[in-house]
C-alpha cells in the first residue's frame, strides 16, 4: 500500500524529473494500461471476448474532434462527454451483439467497429476518409504555455489510468464482480444462483465502452490528428491490447500492467524490425497462451503468491478459523 502511494507520487512528479519525450512515452504506456485493463475486464472477468473495442476508441476520438471542431468546445470538456455519449451508443450496440454468443460475439463486435469506421469516413465535415487535424488555437488554449500543456496532458493520462484501475477494482469488489466471475465460469450456474446474467453483462459492456471511449478521446487529443483507419485500427487498439493482456496475464488486474511494460520494453528495443516485430509478438502470444495461459503475472503469483490488488475471495466458515487470503502476511 505504502509502496503504491510512493510509486504514484513519483509518477505524478514525473514533469520534475522527465523530459518531454519521457512524458509522452509514459502517457502512451498509461493509455495502453487503461485499454488493456478494460479489455481484461471484459474478456478475463466477464467472459465477453471482444475483438472490436477499437469501435469505442475511435468513437470517443471522433466525438472529441466533433465537439472541438464543430462546436468550438474545449478539448478538456469534450473528453468526458465522449465517454458518456459512447456509453449510450454501447447500449444500443449491446442490443445487437448480445444476440451472438462466444466466438460469434467476438466477430460481431468487429463488424460493429467496421461499421463505425465506414460511417466515420462518410462524415465529410470531419475530413471523410482522409482525416482531419484539431484546430491549433483551441488546443493551445488549454494551458498557458506549451510546457504546461505537456504537463497537463501527462497528468490527464495518469489520472485516467488511475481512475480506470480504481473503477475496475471497485466494480470487481462489488456484488457485480462476484456475479461476473460466476458468469465467466458458468452462465447456467450463475443464472441458477439468481444472477441476472444479461443485466450484468450489458452493464460491464457499457462501463467498458464508456472508459475505452474516454481513453480514446485522450489518445487522439494528444495525437492532434484523426483518420478513420487510425482511429478504428484493429491492430493498434485490439491486437496489441490482446497480446499485452495475454502476455501479462489474463483475468488478473496486474496482468495488463505487467504486459504493457513488457510490450513497451520490446517495442523500444525491437521496433526497427517493423513487420518482424509484429510477427514475433503474435508468436509469443500464441506460445504463452498454450504453455502458460495465466501469463507472466500468473507465473509470479504461483511462485511467490504476490497480489497487488486485494481481489481474491476466500470462503470463511463461521466459527472456524478464517482462511488466509493468498498474499496476506
Amino acid at each position, binding site marked *: 500500500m505504502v509502496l503504491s502511494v510512493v510509486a504514484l507520487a513519483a509518477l505524478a512528479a514525473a514533469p520534475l524529473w522527465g523530459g518531454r519525450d519521457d512524458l509522452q512515452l509514459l502517457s502512451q504506456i498509461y493509455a495502453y494500461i487503461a485499454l488493456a485493463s478494460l479489455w481484461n475486464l471484459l*474478456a478475463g472477468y466477464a467472459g465477453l*471476448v471482444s*475483438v472490436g473495442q477499437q469501435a469505442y476508441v475511435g468513437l470517443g476520438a471522433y466525438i472529441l474532434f466533433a465537439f472541438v471542431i464543430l462546436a468550438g468546445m474545449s478539448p478538456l470538456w469534450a473528453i468526458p462527454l465522449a465517454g458518456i455519449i459512447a456509453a449510450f451508443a454501447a447500449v444500443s450496440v449491446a*442490443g*445487437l451483439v448480445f*444476440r*451472438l*454468443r*462466444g*466466438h*460469434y460475439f*467476438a*466477430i*460481431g463486435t*468487429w*463488424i460493429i467497429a*467496421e*461499421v463505425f469506421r*465506414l*460511417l466515420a*469516413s*462518410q462524415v465529410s465535415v470531419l475530413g471523410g*476518409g482522409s482525416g482531419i487535424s484539431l484546430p491549433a488555437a483551441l488546443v493551445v488554449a488549454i494551458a498557458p504555455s506549451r510546457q504546461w500543456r505537456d504537463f497537463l496532458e501527462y497528468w490527464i493520462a495518469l489520472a485516467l489510468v488511475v481512475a480506470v484501475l480504481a473503477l475496475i477494482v471497485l466494480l470487481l469488489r462489488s456484488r457485480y464482480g462476484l456475479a461476473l466471475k460466476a458468469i465467466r465460469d458458468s452462465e447456467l450456474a450463475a443464472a441458477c444462483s439468481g444472477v441476472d446474467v444479461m443485466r450484468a453483462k450489458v452493464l460491464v459492456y457499457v462501463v467498458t465502452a464508456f472508459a475505452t471511449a474516454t481513453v480514446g478521446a485522450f489518445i487522439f487529443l494528444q495525437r492532434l490528428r484523426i483518420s478513420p483507419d487510425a482511429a478504428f485500427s*484493429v*491492430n493498434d487498439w485490439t*491486437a496489441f491490447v*490482446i*497480446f499485452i493482456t*495475454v502476455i501479462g496475464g*489474463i483475468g488478473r488486474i496486474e496482468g495488463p500492467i505487467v504486459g504493457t511494460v513488457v510490450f513497451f520494453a520490446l517495442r523500444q528495443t525491437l521496433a526497427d524490425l517493423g*513487420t*518482424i516485430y*509484429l*510477427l514475433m*509478438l*503474435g*508468436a509469443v*502470444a*500464441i506460445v504463452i*497462451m*498454450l504453455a502458460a*495461459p495465466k501469463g507472466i503475472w500468473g507465473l509470479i503469483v504461483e511462485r511467490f503468491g504476490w497480489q497487488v490488488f486485494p481481489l481474491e475471495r476466500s470462503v470463511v466458515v463461521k466459527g472456524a478459523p478464517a482462511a488466509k487470503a493468498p498474499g496476506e502476511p
Partner: protein
Amino acid sequence: MTDWINVIFQGVLVGGLYAMFAAGLSLIFGVMRLVNIAHGDLIVLAAYLALVTTATLGIGPLVSLLVVVPLMAAIGYALQRLLLNRTLGDDLLPPLLVTFGLSVIIQNALLTVFTADSLKLQAGAIEQATYRLFDGVYVGLLPLLQFVVAVAVIGALQFVFYRTALGRAFRATADNQAVAQLMGLDNRHVFALAMALSLAVVAIAGVFLAIRANFDPSIGPARLIFGFEAVIIGGLGSLWGTLVGGLVLGVAQAIGAHLDPGWQLLAGHIAFLLILAVRPEGLFPRIRT
C-alpha cells in the same frame, strides 16, 4: 430497370464467392466449435500461393488449383494437428487468441515476403469473355464460372457431410466427442481432416479472389467478416443457407455500390445487422447454440 437487374445479377455472382469464404468457416465451426479468425488471412495466403505457383510453373491460375488445393489442405491438417487441437476445450479464449495471433503472423509474414503492393492473377482470355443474356444484362464467363464452382463446392460439402463415412465421423464428433472416441474415432485426426477440407475450400476461394480483384496482405480480415456475415445470415449449420447468405450479402453490397461507391461495404454490414435484429437465428437455421 435493366440497370437494376444487372446490379442484382452481378451481386448474386459475387455472392457465390462469399459463400465459398463462408463454407469453410461454417464447416469447422460445425465440427469443432472453432471460429478461425485467421480464415480470411488463409484465403489471402492461398491467393499468394497461387501467384507463386503460376509464376514458377508457368501455368494458368485455374490449373494452379491442382497444386494450391492439396497444399492448403496439407497446411490445414498440420495446423490443426500441431497447434489448434491443443486449444480446444471448454474455454473459448485459447482458440480465439491463437487464431487471432495466427492472423497477425500470416499478415505480417506475407507483408515481409511480398510487400504491401496490390497484385492480381491474370487468367487470360477467359477474363474478357462475356455473354449477353438479354438487352442490357451481360454476364462474364469468369464470374459465372466462379458462381458455378461455388454451388458445386457447397453441393460437394453437403454430400461429404451427409453421405460419406467421413461426414458421419464429422457429425458424430460434433454431437459428442467422448462417445465418438469410444466408437473408435480419433478426434484429433477427425478435426485435422475437417480443417484440411476447410482449407481446401479456402484455396479455391483464394484463387478466384485473386483472379477477380486486386489483393494485398491486409485484406484478409474483411474476407473473414464477409464469410462470417454469410454464415449468420444463412443460419448456423446449414450449408445451403450459407449459399443464400452469401448471395444476400453480395446483392446488398452491389445495391449499395450502385447508389454510392462509398456505401458498398456499409450496405452489406447493414443487411447483416438487420437480419441479426429481426431474425437472429438466420434465414435457414439448422442448429441452435
